[in-house]
C-alpha cells in the first residue's frame, strides 16, 4: 500500500520528527537518559570485569604457574625453524639456505663463549643445579654455561661451510622445551638420538655426528626456574651434522630424547619428547 515516496517520508520522520522533536524515535531527554544509563551500566560492567580479573591475577604467582598439568612431557623442537619443519638445502643455490644460516647465527649468538663466561656460572656436570630460595623469596637464580664451542663442527665459528649448508652436510639443532621445575632425566644421564623414520629413510640418511658427543644433555641445565628469576638461562642444545645424506631424496628424520622421566610415545602429541622433520639435500 505504501509508495516509495511514503517510505522515504516515514524514514525522514523517523530520523527527525519535527512535531514531537524526536530524533530516531527518541526525544532529547530520552536520548540523554538512555546514554547515561548505558554509560553507567557498561561503566559498572567494565569495573566489575576489571575487579574480577585483578582478583584472579592476584591468585596467580609471578614465578611459577599455578598448574603445569599440561606440561608433564616437554616437547622437542629443531632449529633452523622452517615452514612445515622441512630442512631443504639446495647446495648450489646459496639463497635457499642463506636465511637458515642467518637465523642460526642469530640463534647461537647468546651461546658465544664470551657472553656465557660473562653472565653464567661454570657448573659441575652430571648433577642438577638446584638453587633453593633459602628463605629469601624469589631469589634471583644463576644459570650454567653452555658454550658455543661445545657444538664443535656445528658451532659455526670460523666455519666457511656455513654450518655445512654449502657442502650439503647440514647441521640441525635440537632443543628441549623449557618447563619450570622439571628435573629432566630423573637424575640419570640423558641423550638425544636420531633415526630415519622408515627403513629407506635410515638408508638415505647416511652417517651423522652429534655435538656434544653422543647427543648428551647434561643435568646441570635443570631445573629451570622461570624467565623472571632465571634471567640468563641458557637452553642446552644438541647439534646433529648429517654427513652423507642421499641427495635429491626426502628423508624423514625423527629425533627423540632418551630420559627416564620423558615419555616419547604419546599418540596424539607428535612433539612430546621427540621431533620429526624432513631433510632434503639437493645437488646437481
Amino acid at each position, binding site marked *: *500500500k*505504501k509508495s516509495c515516496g511514503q517510505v522515504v517520508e516515514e524514514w525522514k520522520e523517523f530520523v527527525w520528527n519535527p512535531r514531537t522533536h524526536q530524533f530516531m524515535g527518541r526525544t532529547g531527554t530520552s536520548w540523554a537518559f538512555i546514554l547515561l544509563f548505558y554509560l553507567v*551500566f*557498561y561503566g559498572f*560492567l567494565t569495573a*566489575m*570485569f576489571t575487579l*574480577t*580479573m585483578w582478583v*584472579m*591475577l592476584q*591468585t*596467580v604467582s609471578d*614465578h*611459577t*604457574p*599455578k*598448574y*603445569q*598439568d*599440561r*606440561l608433564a612431557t*616437554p*616437547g*622437542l*623442537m629443531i632449529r633452523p625453524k622452517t*615452514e*612445515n*619443519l622441512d630442512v631443504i638445502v639446495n647446495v648450489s643455490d646459496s639463497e635457499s639456505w642463506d636465511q637458515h644460516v642467518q637465523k642460526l647465527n642469530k640463534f647461537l649468538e647468546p651461546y658465544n663463549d664470551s657472553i656465557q663466561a660473562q653472565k653464567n656460572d661454570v657448573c659441575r656436570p652430571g648433577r642438577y643445579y638446584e638453587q633453593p630460595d633459602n628463605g629469601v623469596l624469589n631469589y634471583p637464580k644463576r644459570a650454567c654455561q653452555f658454550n658455543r664451542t661445545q657444538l664443535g663442527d656445528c658451532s659455526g665459528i670460523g666455519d666457511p661451510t656455513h654450518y655445512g649448508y654449502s657442502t650439503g652436510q647440514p647441521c640441525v639443532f635440537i*632443543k628441549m*622445551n*623449557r*618447563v*619450570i621445575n622439571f628435573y629432566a632425566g630423573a637424575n640419570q644421564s640423558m641423550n638425544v638420538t636420531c633415526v630415519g623414520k622408515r627403513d629407506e629413510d635410515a638408508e638415505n640418511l647416511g652417517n651423522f655426528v652429534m655435538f656434544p658427543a653422543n647427543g648428551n644433555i647434561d643435568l646441570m641445565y635443570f631445573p*629451570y626456574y*622461570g*624467565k*623472571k628469576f*632465571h634471567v640468563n*638461562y641458557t637452553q642446552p642444545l644438541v647439534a646433529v651434522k648429517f654427513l652423507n645424506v642421499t641427495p635429491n631424496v626426502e628423508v624423514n628424520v625423527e629425533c627423540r630424547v632418551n630420559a627416564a622421566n620423558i615419555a616419547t610415545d*604419546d599418540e*596424539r*602429541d*607428535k*612433539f*612430546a619428547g621427540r*621431533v620429526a622433520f624432513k631433510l632434503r639435500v639437493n645437488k646437481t
Partner: protein
Amino acid sequence: MTKKTLEIYSVELSGTKDIQQTDKGNGKEKYRGLKNCFEPRKNHYKEELRKEVDLDDHKLSIKELEKKYDTNIITGLSSTQAAELLARNGPNALTPPKETPEIIKFLKQMVGGFSILLWIGAILCWIAYGIQYSMNTSSSLDNVYLGCVLALVVILTGIFAYYQEAKSTNIMATFNKMIPQQALVIRDSEKMTIPAEELVVGDIVEIRGGDRIPADIRLLSVQGCKVDNSSLTGESEPQPRSSEFTHDSPLETKNIGFYSTTCLEGTATGMVINTGDRTIIGQIASLASGVGNEKTPIAIEIQHFVHIVAGVAVSIGILFFIIAVSLKYQVLDSIIFLIGIIVANVPEGLLATVTVTLSLTAKRMAKKNCLVKNLEAVETLGSTSIICSDKTGTLTQNRMTVAHLWFDNQIFIADTSEDHSNQVFDQSSGTWASLSKIITLCNRAEFSPGQESVPIMKRVVVGDASETALLKFSEVILGDVMEIRKRNHKVAEIPFNSTNKFQLSIHKTDDPNDQRFLLVMKGAPERILEKCSTIMVNGQKQPLDKNTAEAFHTAYMELGGLGERVLGFCHLYLPADEFPETYTFDVDTMNFPTSNLCFVGLLSMIDPPRSTVPDAVTKCRSAGIKVIMVTGDHPITAKAIAKSVGIISANSETVEDIAKRLHIAVEQVNKRDAKAAVVTGMELKDMSPEQLDELLTNYSEIVFARTSPQQKLIIVEGCQRQNAVVAVTGDGVNDSPALKKADIGIAMGIAGSDAAKNAADMILLDDNFASIVTGVEEGRLIFDNLKKTIAYTLTKNIAELCPFLIYIIVGLPLPIGTITILFIDLGTDIIPSIALAYEKAESDIMNRKPRHKKKDRLVNQQLAIYSYLHIGLMQAVGAFVAYFTVYAQEGFKPSILINIRVEWEDSNVNDLEDSYGQQWTWYQRKYLEWMGYTAFFVGIMVQQIADLIIRKTRRNSIFQQGLFRPQYWFVAVPFAILIWVYDEVRKLFIRLYPGSWWDKNMYY
C-alpha cells in the same frame, strides 16, 4: 434458460479459481509489501463470495422441470441418459479438499525458520573443507564433521516438527471416514437402489424418514416430511417440507431438500437438481476450501522473531567477514569465522522448544476438552479479541426444552438446566393435572427401549424435537409416562400436519368409574383457541370470555417474544351417552367433536442455553473479549438467547428496544444510546463494508441473525479489518468457510459436522462454550511463557557470539568452539527452556485485555535489548573471566594472549613461550584451548542457571512467584556426604590392600 444455468455454475467456477489463488497465496504472504498488486483481483474474489446462493428450480413447475432436465417424473431417466450425464458431470460426491503432499510438508519444515541459515552454515563448512583440501590434501576433517552436525541438526529438528504436525493431523483422520450411501431411484420406470455417488441431475429419488438426502432435490410429492436443516441453516427445529413453492430464497422455500441434510420423518419424492460440488453444500465446501488459511498470530510472531535473529546473524556475520578480510585474514579463516558467528547467533534448539511447549499446552487443553488440530492455534485463542459464536449447540443445548407454562392466567418458569432436576412451579392446581395429562397423552414420542439406567435427559427418543421435549418434561415431573399411556389406552389419533396445525388423540381414561373418553389436542395456540369455547382456571371450566382471550394473547405474545415456540393444549371429555365404550372413532370422517373444547394452557419451548455459558461469557467480557452471536436462526430467538447468556447484557438495549420503550419511530432514536444491536442477514446484505465496520466498532454487543454462510464470512472479515484476532465457533457445514477464514476456527466435537471439523483449528470435545475460556487462559499463559523461554534462550547468544568477535579482533585463542555452542543450544539449554512453559501466571491473566496483534509482539525491542545487551553481555563478561582464569593459571596471562592467534594455531610451532618462559607444543596448547572451551561453557552454564531463575517472572519478585523451598535442597545433603565418604573409604582400602577380597569385589 442457458444463461441461468451458467450463473448457477458460476459459483463453482470461481471455487476452482479460488483454490488456484490460495496455492499462490502461500508465496504471496512472504511478500506483504507486494500485496497491493493483487488487490484488484482480490476484490473480485470477495465479490464472488458475497454472491448469494443462486438457484431457481424451486420456482419452476413440474412440467418446466421435466423439460429443463429432460426427464420424466414417472419413468425417470433412462440408464443411457444417466450414464451420459454421469460421465459429463462427474460423480455425485464432494471433491475432497486438495491436500499438500507429505513430501512438500516435510521439505517445508526443512527450509523454514532458521534452517536456511544453518544450511548455509553447513555448506560453508563443506566449502571451507574444499578449500583446505585443495591446499593440503591431508587437512583435518573437522569442518566436514561440523557441516554434517549442522545438517543433522536441521534434519532432526525438521523431522521433529513434521512429526508433531503429523501427529495432530492424524487425530483428524479419524473424523474423516465417510459412510457409503445408497439412494432409491427411478430409472427406466423401475425402482432401483444405487450408490448415491451415481446419481445424476434429473434422477427421480425417493426419500424416507431417517435417510440422508443424497443430492439437492426439488420435492415433487411429500407425505409429512420433515428435514433437519440445522447443519445448513442453523435452525434447530425440524423443517416441514412440501411440494409447493413458498419462498423466493431457495434456502427458505419448502420444496427443496438439500444434500447431506437428514429426512427425519415422512416420505417424499424428488428430482435431483444438483449433484456433487454443485449442490448448496458443495458450494459452501468449495467456498471453505477457497478461503485461504490465515497465518496464526503465533506463526507471525515467530516469523518476526526469526527475522530479527536472522537479521542480526547475517549482518554481524557479513560485517565481521568484511572486517576479517580487511584485517588480512585468509578467506578460509574468514569463512570459518562466518560459520562460527552464524552458529552462535542461531538458537538452534528454540523452534523445537517452541513446538514442544505448544504441544505440551495442547495436551493440557485436550484434557480440558479442547482438541487442538493445529499446534499454533494454542496461542491464537489467547490473543483472541472477538469470538463469533454460533448459537445452536454451542451456546445452547441443541435440544428443545420446555421453558415456560401458562395456565390459570399465570406464567410459570420451568427449569431448563441440563438435568431439569429443579421444577419449582406450582403443581397443585387442578389445571396442571389436566394439562399434564394432555402433555403425556397427546404425544407420539417414545423412549428407545433399554435405557432405564440412563438419566432421563440423556435418553434417546424416537420422535421430533418438540414432542421429545414434552416427553422428557412429563417424564421428569410425572414419572413413568409409558405406564400412564398404557393405563389411558389410545383409541384414535390424528398426527400433526401442516394444514391442520394440530395433533389429536382420544383415550380411555384410567379412572374405572369414569366411562367417558378423553379427547386431547395440542397445536398452534391460535388454532387451538379457535376450537375452544371454555377455559380451565384452577381446575374449573369457565366460559371463554373476552378477558381470558385477552390474557391468552398477552401470554402468547410474551412467550413468543422470548423467542420460544408456543403450543396450546385443550381437552374434552366426550359425553358417555353419545360416545359409549364401544364407539368406533374414525379419524378420516372425524366422527367426534373438534370444537367447543376446553382450553387448558400454553406451553413454550426453547433450545435453552447451556448452564455454563453465561459465566463463560462474563469471563470473556472481563478478559476484554467481545462475544458476537452469529446464527442462522430467527432474530427473536437469537436475541432471547443472547440476553439469557449475557451476550446482550441485562441493562443494554437495542435501537428497537429504545424505540419501543419511548414509543417513537426507530429512525428517531439516537443510535449512540444503544449498546446492543441485532442485525439480520437481510440488513447485512445491504450494508457496505464501511457500514459494517461502523457497526462493529460502535456496538459492543452484537447479534447477527438469519445469516448465510457467505455473510458469516463477511462478518469475520469485518472483524479482522478491526485488527482483531477472531475466533469463530460453529458446528454446521454452513460455518465451515467462516471457521476457515477465522484466525482460529473452533468446531464442536459432538454436534459438529465433518466439514466444520475439517475447517477448524480446534475442536471442543464437549461442545461447551465454557471450554473456550479455559483455552483462552492457556493461550495467554503460553504466550507469556514463550516470551520467557525466548528471552532465556536469546541471552546466551551474545555469550556465544562475543568469543568469535574477540577472537577475530583481538586474536585470542578461540574461547569456545562451534560444537560446544551446539552442545549448549541443543543440549543443556533445551530442558530449562521447556521448563519455563510450565511457569504459572504472574497475575490474573483473565483480567487484562487481549494483546494487540500489531503492538504486543512476542519478541519486542525491549526483550531483545535486555537479553542481548544487558544480561547477555554480563554473561559474556563472566564467561570470559572464567576463560582468562584457566589460561592464567596454566601459564598464559591475559597480556600475552593478545594477538597470539597465528602462532597459537600453527601446528609447526611447538615451542611457544608462555608468560613464565615455558615452552608449549601445539598439542599441549590445543588441550589448553579445550580446557578454555570447557571453562567458557561452564561459565555460560552457571550464569544460565541465574538467567533461568530470573526468567521465571517478568514483573513479580522471584520470591513472590515461589521457588522450590530452599530448605529442601539440603535434606539429602547428609546422604551426598555419605556417598562421597563411602567411596573414599572404598578407594583407600583398594589402594592399601591390592589383590585382597575387597579389591576384587569393589574395584571397577
